[in-house]
């Protein structure tokens, strides 16, 4: 009888603790919902749209002729099909590296210089604003990266290798955090990026405005910070490795709806 009572008490305590943990998760979900309307990312969207149309650079041209994968000037739907192969640059490019290619080709801006510029400064800040707007033009659409070109398939395979590559002082890989279901660090859920993690999760949630530092984070910056947390050097803006990781995540997320630009902690 005593043992049953004890077991009952322990069960009650355990369910109590579980109920608390559940309500904390619900509380966080409610908090995130409250911030959805009036996402400061909208300020960056507006800026990006203006930059797209503005004549700039040595060639004094706008970006309106830029081909982001669906034809010159087409902005709707391109975000959910990147990275992809581009015949003019003969490379697989992600959104940001493609924007820089267009800024160089159409406006005469210096691509190498932009790649070296820290995030949030100068032209790099403009790239982020442009990427935020372009992403917003595909909101709600489902990821459908092309894999028809051999280089696109190669990019996927390279991305997979990079994803599982362990290195750095802590021997971390992307996979250390993102290759299993149900993992989290403190209150942040870690999506499983080896498969489709669901609508608006992982690859489908960036660019995002981070309230903790009031910054607009593009996917390249998100990757930069992941490498920093892995105690591993960032492979560089628009590098093959970062583009390949985007291809890997994007192809795995096929069918997931994009909520970018999102709002994050």
């Amino acid at each position, binding site marked *: 009888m005593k043992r049953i009572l004890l077991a009952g008490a322990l069960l009650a305590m355990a369910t109590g603790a579980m109920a608390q943990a559940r309500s904390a998760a619900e509380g966080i979900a409610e908090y995130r919902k409250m911030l959805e309307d009036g996402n400061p990312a909208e300020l960056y969207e507006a800026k990006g749209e203006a930059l797209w149309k503005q004549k700039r650079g040595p060639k004094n041209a706008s970006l309106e002729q830029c081909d982001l994968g669906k034809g010159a000037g087409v902005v709707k739907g391109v975000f959910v099909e990147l990275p992809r192969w581009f015949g003019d640059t003969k490379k697989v490019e992600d959104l940001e590296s493609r924007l820089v290619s267009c800024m160089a080709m159409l406006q005469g801006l210096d691509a190498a210089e932009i790649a070296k510029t820290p995030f949030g400064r100068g032209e790099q800040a403009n790239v982020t604003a442009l990427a935020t707007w372009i992403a917003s033009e595909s909101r709600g659409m489902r990821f459908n990266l092309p894999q028809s070109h051999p280089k696109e398939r190669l990019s996927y395979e390279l991305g997979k290798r990079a994803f599982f590559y362990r290195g750095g002082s802590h021997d971390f890989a992307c996979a250390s*955090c993102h290759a299993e279901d149900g993992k989290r660090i*403190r209150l942040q859920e870690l999506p499983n990026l080896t498969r489709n993690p669901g609508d608006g999760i992982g690859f489908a949630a960036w660019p995002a405005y981070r309230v903790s530092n009031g910054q607009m984070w593009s996917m390249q910056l998100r990757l930069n910070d992941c490498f920093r947390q892995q105690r591993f050097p960032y492979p560089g803006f628009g590098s093959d490795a970062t583009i390949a990781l985007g291809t890997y995540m994007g192809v795995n997320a096929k069918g997931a709806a994009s909520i970018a630009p999102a709002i994050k902690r």
Partner: protein
Amino acid sequence: MQTRRDLLSHSARVAGLLAAAGLLPSLALAQGGGWNKAAFDAKTLAEALKALGAGAPAESKDVTITGPDIAENGAVVPIGAATTAPGARRLLVLVEKNPSALAAMFELSDAVEASVSTRVKMGQSSNVYAVAVMGDGKVLYAQKEVKVTLGGCGG
């Protein structure tokens, strides 16, 4: 004219008369040095209300404060302040444990509802107050505890 005069703080009374005569284009300009530094330096709800020349506050079901139970990040906490009691002149949002308690003060005209929302920074888990200062001098408030967590890496 009555409405405009209500909206001006005591220290800007002269500017208020000018505004009533239509000589100043907007209230923000009329206030000029009207930002109430004492109120924004106040450490407690009581001090802030004193700096605003308002009386002692009474908790009231006629005032509602909306906000999350738990904020993932204290940098951005959405808070709404509203009252159904007629004749509200001001709505204030205060965070008890912030270095300065008063976060925001809204001056209402008859052309707006007594309901505002904004987002505030919270240094730590704390009580948050929505205060309504009525036209007859009464001060009503509602409070809510908001927990603030620090999120982990990523996300």
